[in-house]
């Protein structure tokens, strides 16, 4: 049982803004997020709530017009925002933190065989890579020692079998468009696990897949993550998926995290009004669809205080004035609300 | 389609495009006001053997040429020739090319296919080569240069319009109009044409620049207006035998060409950014 406070990833009060032609969009407004070792954390929210921005911020690959304003991102004890970019690029990205993208098709270069692209990842991120291998000039003109290359290739093939890609040797020479969507995403999972990371960030990894194979891929990811004791930060807008594979869920609304809870608690006893409405909006047989009234705020000019207050029936002056602090409800359940809903929620 | 004052405002916000516009307007002004701006308007066409090949001085801003004429004044008058050639040639190419493009793009018929074939033929060699053939056959004169250039530039308009019309035909509002029984000519005139205006405008501006370069190249090769017309290309060609001593001789006309073409290119780029930003900012200068 992990000791509380012994978090693998600690995002504290992270604020990120982007300069746009319409003004500065304050995308993340003081977000807190904690992930423990071997934990699958679901990050749930509507489109535009900042899930991808948070993932990018952790990886350190925000767009050029981004500005950190405050906060910290501590990973395995080290503050990533304070670390030199070069170190983040070589030691953290693709190594201790890996990535599974939303679009498995576009995320492969269409002109190179997937074997080449996989081995490129291994060349730089294989656990067998040692410090004395020189990176060359900006990555060019560097050598790939033959012995390691062979070991890496074997590891890749083994992992391809593990993710259930048939005939992995043949797959090596194929171009991305020659594989199916499901195969490509399995490949992505393989590439995310080969460097033996501590954290995998999966950004809506099944959104682009057929519904029939979504569950397969998710179950595979969950199984492998648990086996290897790898944490996963799993962003999604689909609560059903979150229920299936996450250990804990954090809800993000317009750049503010509003509730965090272990998965059962989350579905049985939601406290934040937004969470409740989200759960209510899930389709149910015999009941017409319920939607959450209003619209997500414009981030260039967001509401003050708690950003959900314009759409919340329980909002008061206090909510408009200042964002609520974290209230610990016990058992790892936290909420940020002045007027949380107590009692049982909805199934 | 944004209105003209809107376009102008956006244009002025882009420094490069604004500079281009300024240059083009300057060219027009110079062409119109040449007699007033020239320091030696009378010397443009006459011979002054005592003043030949003088270096730049206060009296002769860019020196004198082999006839003793003031190069600066000749360049100013040459602007008239340049502007005339460019406007008429590109205008004619437009008037020929756009209708052909409309016809061939609208309906898949043998006529359309043939017309596209014909335009392909004109594109089978680089423009200047065919223009040389035409201009040389007809004899050196401004009219023949204009003829040669318009005869070789119209395919660019045709291709452009053809492609636009083809893609427009797939738009739902056009399909709706056809289904409603609106006659073809009305659709083309009222719905298609306004939508192809933007790429045509961009192409026209860039075409002006390119036409000026080709026209001056023809002048350089001896196919343009015969002497003593102050055509810029011909002036550069004349300077060759007096190099390196008369180093100033080719300077003014060459600079004039450079500035003017630059102006049209910048303006064209700016217009392209405003009117159709989805076209990649790559252009070939043609």
């Amino acid at each position, binding site marked *: 049982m992990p000791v509380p406070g012994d978090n693998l990833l600690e995002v504290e009060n992270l604020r990120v803004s982007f300069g746009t032609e319409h003004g500065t969009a304050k995308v993340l407004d003081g977000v807190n997020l904690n992930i423990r070792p071997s934990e699958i954390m679901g990050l749930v929210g509507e489109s535009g709530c900042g899930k991808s921005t948070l993932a990018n911020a952790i990886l350190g690959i925000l767009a050029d017009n981004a500005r950190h304003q405050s906060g910290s991102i501590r990973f395995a004890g080290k503050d990533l925002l304070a670390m030199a970019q070069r170190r983040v690029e070589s030691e953290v990205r693709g190594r201790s933190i890996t990535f599974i993208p939303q679009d498995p098709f576009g995320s492969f270069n269409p002109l*190179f065989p997937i074997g080449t692209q996989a081995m490129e990842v291994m060349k730089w991120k294989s656990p067998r890579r040692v410090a004395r291998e020189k990176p060359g000039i900006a990555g060019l003109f560097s050598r790939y020692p033959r012995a390691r290359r062979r070991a890496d290739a074997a590891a890749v093939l083994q992992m391809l079998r593990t993710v259930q890609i048939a005939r992995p040797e043949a797959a090596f020479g194929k171009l991305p468009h020659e594989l199916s969507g499901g195969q490509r995403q399995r490949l992505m999972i393989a590439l995310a696990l080969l460097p033996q990371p501590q954290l995998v960030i999966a950004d809506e990894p099944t959104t682009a897949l057929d519904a029939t194979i979504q569950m397969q891929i998710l179950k595979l990811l969950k199984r492998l993550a648990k086996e290897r004791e790898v944490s996963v930060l799993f962003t999604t807008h689909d609560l059903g998926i979150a229920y299936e594979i996450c250990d804990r869920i954090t809800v993000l609304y317009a750049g503010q995290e509003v509730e965090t809870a272990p998965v059962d608690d989350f579905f049985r006893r939601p406290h934040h009004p937004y969470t409740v409405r989200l759960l209510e909006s899930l389709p149910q047989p015999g009941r017409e669809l319920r939607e959450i009234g209003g619209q997500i705020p414009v981030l260039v000019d967001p509401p003050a205080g708690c950003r959900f207050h314009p759409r919340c029936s329980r909002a008061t002056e206090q909510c408009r004035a200042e964002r609520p602090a974290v209230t610990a409800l016990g058992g790892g359940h936290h909420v940020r609300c002045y007027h949380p809903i107590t009692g049982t929620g909805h199934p | 389609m944004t209105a003209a004052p809107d376009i102008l405002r956006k244009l002025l916000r882009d420094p490069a495009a604004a500079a281009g516009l300024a240059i083009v307007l300057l060219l027009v002004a110079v062409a119109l006001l040449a007699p007033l701006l020239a320091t030696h308007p009378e010397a443009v066409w006459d011979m002054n053997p005592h003043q030949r090949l003088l270096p730049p001085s206060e009296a002769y801003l860019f020196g004198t040429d082999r006839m003793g004429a003031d190069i600066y004044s000749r360049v100013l008058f040459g602007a008239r020739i340049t502007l005339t050639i460019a406007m008429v040639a590109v205008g004619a190419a437009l008037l020929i090319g756009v209708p052909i493009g409309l016809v061939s793009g609208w309906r898949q018929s043998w006529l359309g296919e043939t017309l596209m074939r014909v335009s392909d033929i004109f594109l*089978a*060699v680089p423009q200047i080569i065919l223009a040389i053939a035409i201009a040389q*056959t007809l004899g050196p004169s401004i009219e023949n240069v204009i003829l040669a250039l318009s005869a070789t530039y119209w395919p660019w308009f045709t291709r452009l319009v053809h492609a636009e019309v083809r893609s427009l035909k797939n738009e739902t509002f056009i399909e709706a109009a056809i289904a409603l029984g609106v006659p073809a000519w009305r659709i083309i005139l009222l719905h298609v044409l306004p939508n192809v205006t933007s790429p045509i405008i961009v192409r026209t501006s860039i075409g002006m620049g390119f036409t000026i370069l080709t026209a001056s*190249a023809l002048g350089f090769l001896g196919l343009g207006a015969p002497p003593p017309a102050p055509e810029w290309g011909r002036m550069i060609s004349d300077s*060759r035998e007096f190099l*390196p001593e008369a180093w100033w001789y080719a300077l003014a006309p060459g600079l004039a060409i450079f500035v003017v073409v*630059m102006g049209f290119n910048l303006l064209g780029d700016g217009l392209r950014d405003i009117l159709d930003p989805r076209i990649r900012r790559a252009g070939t*200068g043609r």
Partner: protein
Amino acid sequence: MRIVALILRRVAWLVPTLAGLVAIVFFISRVIPADPVALLAGETASRAQIELLRQQLGLDRPLIVQLLGYYRQLLSGDLGTSLFTTRPVWDDLSARLPATIELTVAAMIVAVVLGIPLGVIAALHRNRFLDHLLRVFTVAGLAIASFWLALLLQLFFAMDLRWFPLQARITGFPPPSLTGFYVVDALLEGNVARLGNVLAHLALPAITLALPALATIVRFTRAGVLETLQKSFVMYQRAMGIPAGLIVWKYVLRNSLISTVTQIGLLFGILLAGAVVIETVFQWPGIGGYAFEAILHSDYAAVMGFTIYAGVVFGIANLLVDIGHAVLDPRQAAP
């Protein structure tokens, strides 16, 4: 197999296009205001003599018949006889073609080797100083009249500084002719001095010719790289910590090159067009210079022959480019 189909398809397109070009050229040449037969016959010829000559030359027959005759003549490789050199135009041009090819290839190399990296740099520094600088450079490069630039370079580098020779392909005797390309021949000969001589003569013309092509390549590469940088696979590689330089120069470049190569066909047009004036200024003995001399001497037959010749050369060059494009992009199903 796909390549063969591509070639056949392009040739099938090329033939009627060239035939059309020939027809146009033919009709142009028959529009001469002055009577060419009278010119040929000379000033003292009588009316009857002129008519006789016209009959002998077959110029009294209907135009269409003459056109067909012209086609037959062309198919036998006869582009007419130069009025000036009195040799077959085909022979004249073929003798001078290697010089133009050498110049054009040299210019293409300069344009590509410099242009692509500059385009990438412009894209990487988007909207910052280097990008703006390069933009000014490319706009200027496309606005300069090449013959003027040629003169300026001659004036400055050849006449003033004397770093480069003024004109021609070589000073002294050319290397033993194996390929007709002086650079290659000098290399094969192993004569370093001659090689240096040839390269020095090649430098100024090639650079002048290359400039508009260079500007175009920079612009297209910049646009292609910017577009590719938006793609998801770039983001994925960044997220996985692949070194940034590698992402750009190995992966992004390869994807952007597709669009650049597509433009090389267009570039050949620019280069061929530029060759006419550049060869004139530098006295380069290629087909462009030949055209200029033909103009100078009112050698109608030579100019017409040149036009058709240029059409063939241009068509073949484009065909080669299309093949290269199909090879580079393995996804190319049909053009």
